[in-house]
């Protein structure tokens, strides 16, 4: 990807909820993370893997924009 292309994928902190006020900037992200880990509670590793797959598919459809999804896939491939 040429460096001058504006990115479609938002990687700035973005967790929020309409109608709720968070006085500490880490709180909404921490809340999401807690929900994420809780969702896996009591599952086997295999069940967790399947849950993750379903979750990715749901969120990908919600986002819909293929440009964003391509960038997200690319960012996730990067491991260094």
């Amino acid at each position, binding site marked *: 990807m040429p460096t001058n292309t504006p990115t479609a994928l*938002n*990687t*700035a*902190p*973005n967790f929020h909820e309409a109608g709720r006020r968070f*006085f*500490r*900037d*880490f709180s909404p*992200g*921490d809340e999401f*993370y*807690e929900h*994420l*880990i809780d969702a*896996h509670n009591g*599952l086997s*590793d295999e069940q*967790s*893997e399947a849950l*993750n797959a379903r979750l990715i598919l749901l969120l990908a459809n919600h986002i819909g924009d293929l440009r964003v999804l391509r960038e997200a896939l690319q*960012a996730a491939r*990067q*491991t260094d």
Partner: protein
Amino acid sequence: MGAYVNPIYPYKSPADLMATPPQRKPLIVIGAGPVGLAAAIDARLQGLEVLVLDDDKTVSVGSRAVCYAKRSLEILDRLGIADEACGLGVSWNIGRTFLEEDEVYQFNLVPDAGHKRPGMINLQQYHVEEMLIARALELGADIRWQHKVTAVTPHDAHATLTVETPEGTFDIKADWLVVADGARSPIRRHLGLDIEGRVFQDRFLIADVIMKADYPAERWFWFDPPFHPNQSVLLHKQSNNVWRIDFQLGWDADPEEEKKPEKVIPRLKAMLGDERPFELEWVSIYTFQCRRMTDFRHGRVLFAGDAAHQVSPFGARGANSGFQDADDLMWKLGLVIKGQASEKLLDSYAMDRQFAADENIMNSTRSTDFITPKSRTSKTFRNQVLALAKHHPFARKLVNSGRLSVPSFLTGSVLNTPDAEAFEGNMVPGAPMDDAPVQVNGQDAWLLNQVGKGFQVMLFVDAPLSPDVLAQLANVSLHGGSTPLRAIASPIKPTLLIVVPSPLNIPGMNVIVDTQGLVAKRYDAQPGTTYLLRPDQHVLARWRTLDTDRLQAAMARALGQVGAQA
């Protein structure tokens, strides 16, 4: 360099307390730890007689609670020992988090300037306790060492205590009893009161090391460092060349074995490098729980600090929340003891601090689950957050190596009056007040040192005073800054604090000059803006104009005279 030697406080014969038994005291505090001592000092500052009973005769053995947050320092400032604590303690604002050898995330506890106190100081608990004891004694608190309370019998209007001393046992009554006897709380157990929550299956090693080192005064946290693979490590600088190093060991570690110097020293050498000389001051293995009592108030018996709630140590939310308990409790208890408020006000202590305890438990549980993942999936998520953090800002925000103690916004407190007008910023009803630099009588000063003296009304005016404001001031019959707002028909009348943008003399009034405009900015104030403040430096209510009817209604609510919340 040399290890700390615990002082021994003199035992005083209870002969006077045993004479004509059972005696009755207005206020007894069980436990001369940080929380009990803070409560005792606050009581003395209000002119209340207080008896403190402690089963030991010295301060904390080991450094234990070493991180004192900005809010605690503001409370200690009001109690009179913050300068001393900050002078001896190590101030810091920056925390760094490393994955293996790379820094992945950094936070600054106080990113904006204009606060008297730093984000945090590190100071051994024994030093803090020594300062609190000296202050409490200076103010006339009656502290009795080697006085172990073995039984408490609650009654409608008092509690009866049985106290064991080297000279025998006696009974004594307390109109009000504050229980601050620590996490194991013998009194809570004795009364059979529930405390429920979660036990974490992990063990940690604390080592206090005396050494000369030039690491900066910052909090350093490692995930999976080369010197302690697959586990976490935390480094803190304390006063007098003492360093706190905290190693995660895992649940299978044998605590007795791990405490042995021959096990601890190689761990330290691996971390510090072989060359650096150091001395081991204190070693402890700990596990922890996150839990709280269902109700902090049981009639005349009030629980505070670790006795009432416990958290994991990640975030320094133990002693810090305990100081906030004492801060919240004591103004309410003072009003009740003096007959200026109904004892119903104390229910708001339980509600405010239970809310805060839940928030502390929530944050410390989230940190713990991030630091010590409980499943393979959880660990994968944690490690991939850390991996993404190298490139992506959102992931840095998710890195949770401990969310450090900050006071709760008591937005749901029954004492608050909800906003009826629009305000920007964070100083909502229930907010712990933001500090700001000001001038008083031509001298540099701090906003928080001007408040915390009973209920106060902070009124922002323009300079020079507009006819409207002059009319308002006349309307509320002000007679001098320390004179209560007389027009308020309340048993307790708030005093008035006037905030002006540039020096202005208003004879007989408490005037503070907002030299940098930061008070107005942080409180979103315009001329006429009026804040009603709690004695513990929280916002109760705010309006765009000073209106005595609304102020009066807000005061009634603040004294617990209004049951249901609007």
